[in-house]
């Protein structure tokens, strides 16, 4: 492995992070709050370490699988550690574990918080907290790649290890350009939502921070009661729509911007995504209208919760813990789904779910026609057999990790509902779960061990398991 190349790339990554910290520094200076010192020092430390690392000498070789995994795995760990510095220095948290948990939760776009009183925090800190969502959503390394002139070297393995879905690819031949195009779409979406939220009646600061949390499918709010604090249907609708949009494959937006509107509606994954959301909303609406009476209100609440959960955002407009068990179970199932491949959302991803269904269908078919050879197709595109196997193993691994971690959490003084939902909410990067980690509660009361474990679960989920697990397998370190 070319460790020089790994360190160099991570150095660039930290410099990019330091540059992004300038934004919250500006915010804190604008509001005249004392946390600007924390950001100033954090920027200096991060930029310093980043600059030193960026001087590492790389052998002139391409980024191969090993380097790709190493850069992404180690990179995400380091940006979380350095990203936690402002929280510590500003006194938001009195210990490193809480600050680390909050930062990881931000970058992985989970949105699980250990902050008890959000509204008492200075604006700079709140801004940084939301900005981590925005950066983590599309991927910090993707941003770094879009800036680096990757002359003569393919960094596709980095993009592959960081982006979501089973078969990430390029939109255009040059990798830096692909990363740029994705970010342009992301920025457009961000700009639009800020404008709509402002029109919807939100103050500018809140509009920006909530937009970051929406398009990155994160879920951090700057209010203790999350979106419920505004109690305005217009804001809920805007956030709901943009959450839905953030869960769509971004390459579809590229097609649309290129004038190919049809490909959006022809895309099978998009169709399936809409179908799942539609069915879930109808079922929950019917189920909760009984107790609420008002069908319109029920519909709005059901739609908001379904969209926010399936895209792994995790904003709250109400405490769904009080819903009937049937509706809660639907949300619990949706927690595993996630949005489309190539979106900013977490979870297993719709495309993988579709492949698993087709695989099962094929197995049934083979019972009747044992000699048949059938290739799995999604929307006319054949999915290569090795990708199918990879997806099956991924889904299996997802549930194994879910079961294993839930078991461990049960030893940490948690009940069954809380521990299982805390694990899936972390693994799928959602945020709120049920029981003691429900939308009305938060993660502050957990033990230190649980917080560390869940932090790693979030990174595991964000980087789609393989990237992180491969780093702790002995095979990886053997030459």
């Amino acid at each position, binding site marked *: 492995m070319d460790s020089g190349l790994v360190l160099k790339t991570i150095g660039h990554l930290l410099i990019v992070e330091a540059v992004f910290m300038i934004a919250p520094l500006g915010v804190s200076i604008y509001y005249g709050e004392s946390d600007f010192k924390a950001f100033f020092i954090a920027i200096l430390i991060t930029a310093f370490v980043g600059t030193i690392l960026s001087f590492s000498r790389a052998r002139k070789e391409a980024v191969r699988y090993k380097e790709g995994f190493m850069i992404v795995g180690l990179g995400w760990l380091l940006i979380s550690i350095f990203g936690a510095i402002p929280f510590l220095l500003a006194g938001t948290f009195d210990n490193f574990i809480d600050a680390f948990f909050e930062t990881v939760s931000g970058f992985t776009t989970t949105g699980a918080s250990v902050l008890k009183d959000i509204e008492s925090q200075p604006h700079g800190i709140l801004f940084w907290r939301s900005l981590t969502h925005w950066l983590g959503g599309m991927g910090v390394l993707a941003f770094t790649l879009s800036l680096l002139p990757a002359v003569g070297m393919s960094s*596709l393995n980095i993009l592959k290890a960081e982006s979501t879905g089973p078969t990430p690819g390029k939109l255009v031949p040059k990798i830096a350009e692909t990363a740029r195009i994705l970010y342009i779409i992301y920025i457009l979406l961000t700009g639009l939502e800020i404008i709509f939220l402002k029109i919807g009646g939100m103050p500018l600061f809140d509009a920006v921070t909530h937009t970051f949390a929406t398009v990155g499918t994160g879920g951090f709010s700057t209010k203790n009661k999350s979106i419920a604090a505004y109690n305005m249907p217009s804001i809920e609708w805007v956030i709901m729509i943009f959450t839905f949009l953030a869960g769509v494959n971004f*390459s579809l937006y*590229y097609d649309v911007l290129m004038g190919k509107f049809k490909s959006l509606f022809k895309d099978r994954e998009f169709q399936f995504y809409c179908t799942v959301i539609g069915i879930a909303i109808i079922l929950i609406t019917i189920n909760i209208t009984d107790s609420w009476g008002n069908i319109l209100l029920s519909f709005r609440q059901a739609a908001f919760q379904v969209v926010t959960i399936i895209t792994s955002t995790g904003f709250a407009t109400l405490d769904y813990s009080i819903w009937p068990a049937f509706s809660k179970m639907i949300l619990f199932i949706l927690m595993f789904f996630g949005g489309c491949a190539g979106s900013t959302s977490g979870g297993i991803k719709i495309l993988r779910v579709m492949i698993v269904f087709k695989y099962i269908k094929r197995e049934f078919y083979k019972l009747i026609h044992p000699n048949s050879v059938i290739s799995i197709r999604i929307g006319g595109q054949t999915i290569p057999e090795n990708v199918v196997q990879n997806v099956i193993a991924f889904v299996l691994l997802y549930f194994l990790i879910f079961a294993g971690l839930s078991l461990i959490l049960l030893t940490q003084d948690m009940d069954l509902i809380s521990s299982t939902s805390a694990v899936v909410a972390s693994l799928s990067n959602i945020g709120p779960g049920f029981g003691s980690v429900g939308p009305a509660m938060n993660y502050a009361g957990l033990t230190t061990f649980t917080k560390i474990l869940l932090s790693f679960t979030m990174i595991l989920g964000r980087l789609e398991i393989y990237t992180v697990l491969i780093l702790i397998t002995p095979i990886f370190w053997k030459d």
Partner: protein
Amino acid sequence: MRVIIIGAGKVGYNIASALSKEMYDVIVIDNDEEVLKKVDDTLDVLTIHSNGLIGKSLSKIGVNKDDIVIAVTESDETNILLCLSAKHLEAGRTIARIRNPEYENDLSLPKEKLPIDFIINPEKTTAEEIVRLLTFSPAGMINEFGDGSVQMVQLNVQDDSPLNNKMLKEQNNQGKYLIAAIIRDGETIIPKGDHYIKTGDNIFVIGQKKEIAGYFSSIGEVPLEIKRVIILGGGRISYYLAEYMSKLGISTKIIEKDMERCKRLSEELPDTLIIHGDGTDLELLKSEGIATTDAFIALSGFDEENILATLLARQNGAKKGIAKVNRENYISLASNIGVDTTITPSLITTSKILGFIRRETVLSLSLLPGGEAEVIEFFIGPETRAVDIPLKELNLPEDTIITTIIRDNKVIIPHGQDVIKKYDRIIVITKAETAGLVREFLLGKERIRKNGFWTGFKNNRSSVNR
């Protein structure tokens, strides 16, 4: 500008590698996922797995008139068909590799009706290259520039050569020729004056044709007169080569293992003696007069066999040995163990295709073995910003030398105080990764992307589906 390469074999890979380092957007299409994986891992290009439907992928990516389509799949028929459909989709230029000589004759339609702008026949081109090598035997490789007035000649430095441990400056002193590159242990060096030459180096001397011959005889490398040639293997290159040889009146023998192939060759080549047998069999070589042979050329399908047979022939008296080596990794190895000359068809093909793609600005181009460095001949137009500036003040990119200036049919090997003038032709040697930069630099047109953030959209009006 987009370049669409169909077929990610050796030639496809090499072209993609060279062009992706420049301003080109390269798309590689292939049927084989394993091959594409390798491309994806090492090059910054877009790969498309075609599921066997290459034509469909071609129409899907929306070929337009700025695009260049290069069909280098294994099959001639596929390549022709692809160029046909690419032209139909209004591709700007099409290039096809066509191996079968019959097709080439059949395709002799008027140029404007032909769907292919450039046909490359690797075997024929390779045979031509070998003929050129035989006409000047000390050379390991000969490239011509400036319509043949300038040559670049490769020489392998032997133990007993007077060049050993000489400083480059002492060799370049007369301003008539220049050592432009050294390949040492497989690594290409663009040397400065204070480099030393070592045993086993492959040096590339560039200069006026007649001066080079003089230089070579001054260091004891006298050209042989080739009269008798033995060719190992009866493939297509051998066929073309034997044809050329008979035109030149050189006595030629082809040794081929396969009886059927022998029969066919004997029908096609009346002037050539076809021998059925194993070319690595020493007794056979001896009885066919290896000791009095001027050149032994190994062109079988196996690199290992070619290298070993050439060594064997050299040991037993052949005066010159040429081995065809398909794997580029073997080139430096072969020259280290004493094979004086190797030829690699894929490299020759690649440089021909690259030369065609860049023909607007580039008069000719050749790749050094290994593909790390390029020798490029430019025409200096009137609006170039590099003119009338002394070369030493030009701040050329690293590892770049302006080796020759051709002005009014005169060849100048320039010094630091010389200048480039309008309408000159210049020959530059540079590393492959800086080739694009050098061209921008010397031709001075503002083609570098100013704001890449937006060009991603502008340049790709037709997108590619996931």
